[in-house]
């Protein structure tokens, strides 16, 4: 009390010592303001580092060795210049007769496409093998070091710049060697899974939101449903995986494996660990998010719009269908797409549900075994070999592009729907 009084006395003296510590306090404030800004910049830089580290691994120099020198097959080693007949000759001249017969049984060499022949010559005759990979930073900034290393360690190897994301990577399936592996089956698996998720979670989620916002009375049961949905939104995704494993894979196996419909298309025996199970598990996962988002969209529809419907004698459902839904559908739809695009990146629940660890065939139906892009990324990252990290980075780029394009699609769709909307 006395201290405060004396300070007040000094402040009031009017000799310029009003707020004696002002300079110090302001300097202190400036320092902290800089710290707050620095923290924010750090957060943005981390995002940059994340993207940079992925790009750094997805492109770069690769040192490869071959079993047959391409220069012996074609002048200058450029096998692209060979004719189809010469390619067939190269295959026949270099492969063991047993392998040739096996290939011939699949499809006679003379009838094969040119791209197919080229791939065969590359894989089976030349037999490229990766001996060393370099990151993009090493390739661009430390080229001299790379060359010195190569001259000392692998003088025979050919050094080429490689984009690990390429047409072949997108077009081929899982393989035991990184350079031949691709994301095709995983990409198809992801798209099929997500379609099932969208087809189930979207209608159910919107119906639940309509119930809660338009129909439900404020009683104990409906309050319980609301609290429950918020709780579900916070359940870790891996728990949904456990639920999917117990319910869809085991308890409902006859349905999810397709046996109940007489459609056991997959002789390898997926046993309920199918695309259908994966899609339904993810549907349960995104359902709370879709419901909460749709509820917010319905809540934003003005009350007067509903009342005008009732005033002309519309029933409750007519009001919902003709007034509330058209007025809020842009928000509902974009929210659902964003939720589903998040689900595309989900990994843990699908590992638990039983994604295949090594799938070389494309899924043929919803009752097939499955793998998805994040699962591939997980498996490739978990391998110790450097070149698998390269294709993991490449797969991450594919995944991020897929998610970004879905989000962009959602934004375009929203703008379109907004332009067409009858009610503002």
């Amino acid at each position, binding site marked *: 009390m006395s201290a405060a009084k004396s300070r007040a006395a000094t402040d009031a003296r009017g000799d310029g010592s009003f707020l004696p510590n002002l300079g110090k306090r302001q300097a202190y404030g400036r320092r902290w303001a800089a710290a707050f800004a620095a923290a924010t910049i750090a957060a943005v830089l981390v995002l940059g580092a994340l993207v940079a580290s992925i790009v750094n691994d997805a492109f770069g120099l690769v040192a490869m060795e071959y079993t047959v020198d391409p220069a012996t097959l074609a002048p200058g080693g450029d096998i692209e210049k060979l004719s189809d007949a010469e390619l067939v000759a190269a295959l026949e001249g270099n492969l063991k007769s047993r392998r040739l017969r096996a290939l011939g049984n699949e499809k006679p060499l003379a009838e094969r496409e040119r791209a197919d022949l080229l791939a065969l010559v590359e894989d089976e005759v030349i037999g490229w093998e990766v001996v060393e990979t370099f990151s993009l930073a090493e390739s661009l900034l430390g080229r001299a070091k790379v060359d010195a290393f190569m001259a000392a360690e692998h003088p025979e190897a050919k050094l080429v710049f490689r984009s690990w994301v390429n047409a072949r990577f997108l077009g081929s399936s899982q393989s035991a060697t990184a350079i031949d592996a691709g994301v095709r089956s995983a990409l198809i698996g992801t798209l099929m899974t997500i379609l099932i998720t969208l087809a189930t979670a979207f209608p159910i989620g919107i119906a639940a939101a309509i119930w809660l916002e338009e129909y439900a009375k404020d009683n104990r049961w409906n309050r319980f449903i609301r609290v429950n949905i918020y709780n579900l939104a916070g359940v870790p995704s891996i728990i949904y995986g456990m639920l999917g494993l117990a319910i869809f894979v085991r308890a409902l196996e006859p349905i999810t494996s397709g046996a109940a419909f007489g459609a056991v298309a997959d002789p390898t025996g997926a046993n309920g660990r199918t695309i259908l199970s994966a899609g339904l598990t993810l549907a349960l996962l995104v359902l709370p998010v879709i*419901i909460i988002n749709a509820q917010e969209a319905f809540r934003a529809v003005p009350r007067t719009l509903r009342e005008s419907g009732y005033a002309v004698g519309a029933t409750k459902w007519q009001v919902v269908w003709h007034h509330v839904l058209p007025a809020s559908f842009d928000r509902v739809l974009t929210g659902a797409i964003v939720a589903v695009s998040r689900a595309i990146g989900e990994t843990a629940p699908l590992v638990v549900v039983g994604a295949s660890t090594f799938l070389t065939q494309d899924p043929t139906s919803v009752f097939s075994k499955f793998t998805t892009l994040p699962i591939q990324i997980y498996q490739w990252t978990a391998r110790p070999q450097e070149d698998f990290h390269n294709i993991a980075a490449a797969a991450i780029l594919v995944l991020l592009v897929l998610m970004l394009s879905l989000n962009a699609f959602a934004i375009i769709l929203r703008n379109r729907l907004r332009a067409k909307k009858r009610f503002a």
Partner: protein
Amino acid sequence: MHETFPDARTGRLSLAKRARPVEAAIRGLLSVSAAISVLTTLGIVVTLGTESWGFFREVGILEFLGSLEWQPVIGDFGIWPLFNATLTTSFFAMLVALPLGLMVAIYLAEYASDRVRETLKPVLEVLAGIPTVVYGYFALATVTPFLRSLLGTELVGVYNTFSAGIVMGILILPLVSSMCEDALSAVPRSLREGAYAMGATKLEVATQVVVPAAFSGLAAAFILGLSRAVGETMIVALAAGAGPKFTLNPFEPAETMTGHIVRISGGDISYDSIDYRSLFAIALVLFLVTLALNSLSRRIVAKHGEVYE
């Protein structure tokens, strides 16, 4: 005339409710859809409960909660090594996300101009939208090698809970900062103006007026962030290491609860085995911990949330 209604025949307007079978059917369909969320919860509780019950009949809850060893091969099922690793990674995650998240939130809510805020918020949202497996890759392929070159390869293992925790902190940073920013922005302008009128500097207003006023919202954000960290899986599955181990050294590998579930269920596991059931017991612990944290977070907001006019 398509249909004849009773009131159409009598020519009188009836205000009585007419039976509308289609409306009733739609109503039923909608309520069933809403009930699916309850069924999901029920499904989680029942599956976790029954499988764990089978597990506890064989192992005993005292050993589960008391033992420091998790070695299914020789029948040791003590959850502490897994729980401890989860605590370690979550601790480092919060060590990053708590101060950094609060500072970012204060900057965005109090200092940044509208234009800066409108550019930075989407960037943080992008950070929040990146799949966790990508963060796992980042932890294993970038952060760990960096730490190893910085602190020495003898000290830092190829797999360690430290870098998993740090990257997890980066993962939950956007969640924490955006929730904190919402809480700070909800503090009314009049409170700030009052403090300025008393001669407070901008920093004093932010730290001594706005932050205490928004405290419940900030606490809720941190608890929700902690809950996310506890349930986070892919980062720890990739970067924290395989194999349960009770260690307090964050540079050693140790498997978390979530990491263990993913590794074991990803392999060939036979149903109805003790290993299979033990996963559900771990999941039950995980479920209860995250549920408690989420409920606490919501209660704080509901009970102590200041409502300003």
